[in-house]
């Protein structure tokens, strides 16, 4: 076991090698065979997965594991940045989540991308992403996190814009990167400020700069040095990174557009791993955030609003991937909310369960889209359960899981809700429960529209291949049971509860609020299911009475708000169009006509004066030299005169 811990660097190193091999292999045309790219990708991830499993087992047996290794990377003056790897329980958990989901999605991608002419490029990007994500997970310090934070961002940029000949994909890729850059800006300034206010401590203790293990001490020192206001700003800057990466409001708009990428990418990057990295970073920076209660409150509210608003948008989406994307946003909101109220382990628990079931849901939608020749609109689907039962049932498992109907999502969501309850955050609890209701509603709506009823589309159907359905079945297992497995109910056979595993001394732990809350949330979920069924399931539509129709008419303004995504995009566009670009235009014109105009004016006047000396041809350089030298001598004379006098 020690072997795996000591050689943990293999996990990110193998994908990097895979990337380089594919890159150079293809650049010099050493091979054509698609299976070589596939084997390099899947092989590297598989070995990583085996390593991760052993590391996880080791960590379960040795809960106090905290293995660190640092290499000095950049050294200038008192700036000493290191990169390295850190293995603790949290990292072990993330490693397993990332490698297992990556592995299945890579296998699935083979089926999905087989006909695409960019097959090798796709796998090269995929394995590059894998490298960056795993190195991000293993980061020992905030600086290293920043490096790989940007690298996962750029992998995401490359993969969203994979079909770059589509204008919408190109636009979406750029948007994702720029919005993430806003987050990176905050993260960068926050990091610098944190470092600045605790610099003496770092230099005097000879610790690795910004190492997570000692961030708590440095944070409290920074708080003492900076004062609460500046420290709050600093923490908000740091929070901005996760807000952008985990698609929290108001920087969430890129996630829905990111669905322009191939569906396996949406499953891997924009549902399971990269977007969860924001929550992971919050977990890593927890010792800093919890020093400021205001920032924690802001975090909780950002999470709550993000849980709520995207859920309301998801209700009216007809594009199956967009619906899932807003659902991802909303679930990420839950995680951030949990983090914000101090329910550290509940948030991470939800991160883990969500990664599995949401990856599976996306892969199901990918199978549907692939089978229907790129049809994404649920209005042209329906009745697909009979045609592709595997996909339909796995989708149903995912739907049940995310809705909190006793599968894995129930346990993790329950942990969040009970933390809200025990801490007496009434308003936040209400928002979370309303969101839970909407979640069930829109997920069952999408299930019914896609798999039940009559087929409404025209596209020719062809069956998804085994290589695509097998990963779905495999993913269905953790989606169904992982919540129960780590809920603490199986203590008797030696499986500890999740919160014990990622236990963090700083986190607040509340007792569960009895049976009231679980039952309450189950009822709410059932209500959501019922509403969706009444409207969209042919077996229940007999209940669909006229009152619902009236309601739909009465809520037109709300409907408009939802279908227009609360006008976030329009607002951003207005901001760019009427603020940023005019400023740029102004500066550009200023540059061209004022600054350069003045220069030309000086030049012209010289030319006029020089007319007598006929300065207009190329030969005027020499003349200029003479005049310039003369005037220069004059300057010197004046200088010396001044000095003497």
């Amino acid at each position, binding site marked *: 076991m020690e072997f795996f811990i000591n050689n943990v660097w293999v996990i990110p190193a193998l994908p990097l090698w895979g990337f380089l091999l594919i890159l150079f292999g293809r650049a010099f045309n050493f091979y054509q065979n698609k299976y070589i790219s596939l084997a390099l990708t899947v092989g590297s991830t598989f070995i990583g997965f085996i390593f991760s499993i052993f590391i996880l087992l080791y960590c379960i047996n040795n809960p106090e594991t905290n293995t660190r290794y640092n290499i000095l*990377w*950049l*050294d*200038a*003056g*008192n*700036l000493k*940045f290191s990169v390295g790897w850190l293995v603790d329980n949290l990292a072990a958990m993330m490693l397993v989540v990332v490698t297992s989901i990556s592995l299945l999605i890579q296998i699935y991608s083979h089926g999905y991308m087989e006909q695409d002419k960019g097959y090798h490029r796709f796998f090269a990007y995929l394995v590059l992403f894998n490298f960056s994500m795993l190195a991000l997970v293993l980061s020992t310090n905030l600086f290293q996190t*920043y*490096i*790989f934070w*940007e*690298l996962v961002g*750029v992998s995401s*940029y490359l993969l969203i*814009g994979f079909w*770059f*000949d*589509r*204008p919408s*994909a*190109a*636009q979406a*890729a*750029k948007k994702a*990167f*720029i919005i993430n*850059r806003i987050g*990176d*800006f905050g993260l*960068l*300034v926050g990091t*610098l*400020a944190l*470092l*600045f206010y605790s610099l003496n401590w770092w230099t005097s203790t000879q610790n690795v700069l910004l190492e997570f293990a000692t961030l708590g001490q440095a944070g409290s020192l920074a708080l003492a040095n900076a004062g609460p206001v500046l420290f709050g700003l600093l923490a908000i800057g740091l929070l901005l990174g996760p807000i952008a990466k985990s698609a929290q409001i108001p920087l969430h708009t890129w996630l829905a557009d990111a669905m322009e990428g191939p569906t396996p990418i949406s499953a891997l990057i924009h549902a399971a791993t990269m977007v969860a990295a924001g929550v992971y970073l919050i977990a890593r920076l927890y010792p800093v955030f919890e020093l400021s209660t205001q920032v924690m409150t802001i975090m909780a509210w950002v999470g709550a609003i993000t849980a709520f608003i995207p859920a309301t948008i998801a209700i009216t989406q007809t594009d199956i991937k967009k619906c899932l994307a807003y659902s991802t946003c909303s679930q990420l909101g839950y995680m951030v909310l949990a983090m914000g109220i101090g329910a550290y382990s509940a948030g991470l628990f939800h991160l883990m369960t969500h990664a599995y079931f949401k990856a599976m849901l996306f892969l199901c939608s990918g199978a549907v889209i692939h089978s229907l020749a790129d049809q994404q609109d649920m209005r042209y689907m329906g009745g697909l359960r009979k045609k592709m039962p595997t996909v339909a049932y796995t989708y149903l498992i995912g739907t049940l899981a995310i809705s909190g109907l006793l599968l894995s999502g129930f346990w993790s969501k329950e942990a969040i809700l009970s933390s809200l309850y025990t801490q007496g955050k009434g308003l936040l609890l209400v928002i979370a429960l309303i969101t839970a209701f909407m979640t069930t509603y829109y997920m069952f709506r999408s299930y019914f529209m896609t798999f039940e009823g009559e087929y409404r589309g025209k596209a020719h159907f062809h069956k998804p291949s085994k290589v695509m359905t097998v990963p779905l079945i495999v993913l269905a297992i953790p989606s169904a049971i992982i919540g129960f497995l780590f809920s603490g109910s199986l203590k008797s056979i030696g499986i500890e509860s999740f919160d014990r595993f990622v236990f963090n001394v700083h986190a607040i732990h509340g007792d569960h609020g009895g049976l009231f809350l679980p039952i309450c949330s189950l009822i709410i979920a059932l209500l959501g299911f019922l509403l969706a069924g009444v409207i969209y399931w042919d077996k229940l539509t007999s209940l669909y009475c006229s009152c619902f129709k009236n309601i739909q008419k009465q809520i037109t303004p709300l409907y408009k708000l939802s279908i227009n995504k609360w006008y976030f995009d329009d607002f951003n566009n207005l901001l760019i169009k009427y603020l*940023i*670009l005019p*400023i*740029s*235009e102004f*500066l*550009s014109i200023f*540059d061209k006509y004022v*600054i*350069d105009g003045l*220069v030309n004016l000086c*030049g012209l006047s010289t030319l006029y004066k020089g007319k007598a000396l006929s300065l207009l041809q*190329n030969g005027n*350089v020499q003349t*200029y*030299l003479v005049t*310039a030298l003369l*005037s*220069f001598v004059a*300057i*010197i004379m004046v*200088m*010396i005169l001044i*000095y003497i006098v």
Partner: protein
Amino acid sequence: MEFLSLNILIFAPLIVAGIILSPLFPNDEIIVRRFAKGFAGLLFIYSILFMIFFKPHEVGYQFKENIKLFSDANWIEPLGISLSFGVDGISIILVVLTTFLVMLALIASKKAITTKHKLYYSLILVLTTAILGMVTSRDLFLFFLFWELELIPMYFLISIWGTGKKEYSAMKFFLYTFFGSLFMLAGILALNYFHVINTGVSTFSIETLTYSRHYDIPFMFEALIFFGFFIAFAVKLPIVPLHTWLPNAHVDAPTPVSMLLAGILLKMGGYGLIRFNTQMLPEMIKIFAPILIVLGVINIIYAAFVALVQKDLKLLVAYSSISHMGFVLLGLGALNVAGISGAMFQMIAHGLISAGLFLVVGVIYLRTKTRTFSQLGGLGQVMPKAFYFTMLLALASLGLPLLIGFAAEVMIFYGAFTSDSLEGFVLSNQVMTGLAAISIIITAAYLLWMLQKVFMGNMFEKWQKTSDLTPHEAIALTFLSIPIVLFGLYPEGITSLFLPFVDNLVSHFTL
């Protein structure tokens, strides 16, 4: 190392230029180009040897040379002017950068230059001598001579082989630089003057004036000297508002000349600021650091905003150059090891990246005969190699980690943020750095917008038959990409060369 002679390194290009220009040399494009290119390759390898045998931990110049032309005395003995050369931590890396980029510019000249080959290649080599002389001279007057010498080939390179309003641009470039250099000359002479009246000996030696200046120059005059140098380098760097020559010169210069202009000539501004304004006048830089920082932040933000709305591809790259050179100022103004090392690193990083970007612009222009964004689009479908190289360069330019631009930005941001050079000033270092950091968003916006406009999206019908990179272009871009990735992964490969120098430099004004 007897065989490593700076004289050979500096004057060999001049001699080869003479050979090429001589009537005996065949007037055949291929022969001239291959000859020049081969020579540049040798020169590059020769300069690499200097770097290998360079001892970073020794303070002061190494490989010292002092050419004595007619007798044992210095070149112009009565005035104390000598033909002396040497390299230290900051010049060695610029020497290698120069020979490297000259080699690549010559490789990239194949299709870009269609007339007067003999003159073109010899002018490029004269330019090489001028630049190498500038970074290695140990004598202020010599430095000035090379500084002026560089103008002449540059003027002709733009005005003969350029496009558009080339005469106007060349003249503007010439006048601007010349205007700046006058102030520098005044500064140089004033330094000499004060040395004479204090010690009775006339000297222009940089070492003497830097390390053994034990007298005080009246504050007023020292400030004037500082500003004399500063204006010359501000024009070169360029610093807003003295930058308007640069967009013109870049747009109208031929591709290889743009590469050299952005890759090396702008760095002379940064080099001068470190060598003279910082090293020679440490008292002054401490006083004027706030000005450097403010101007740096203005440069960064202003040029980035202007780049955002450019309609011409080359103009966008030109303004991005201005914006990136602002980082050099910001780093310098920090006056600490991290900041100044970052400024140095940024010069190297920007030299490589901007040369690459200008090359790509040239590649596109050669095929489409346009640089207007509205005319371009979807080229990635027909030019995938060009697309990937541009993507790499753009990502490096916007400071993607593990590419060369990132290490520079990190050092500069860190240096500027933790510095206290703005003490007593209204805005603290932290606020100014925060403002500068906004540029990471804007830079990403305009570079990715550029990628999207040129390479992604729908393609115009007329570009259907555009060809991808030729082997020449691919090789030049590959050569550029290697250090961009290599030193991005391993920044110490560069920093170790100049860190001892910077340490020493900083120790002088923290005393």
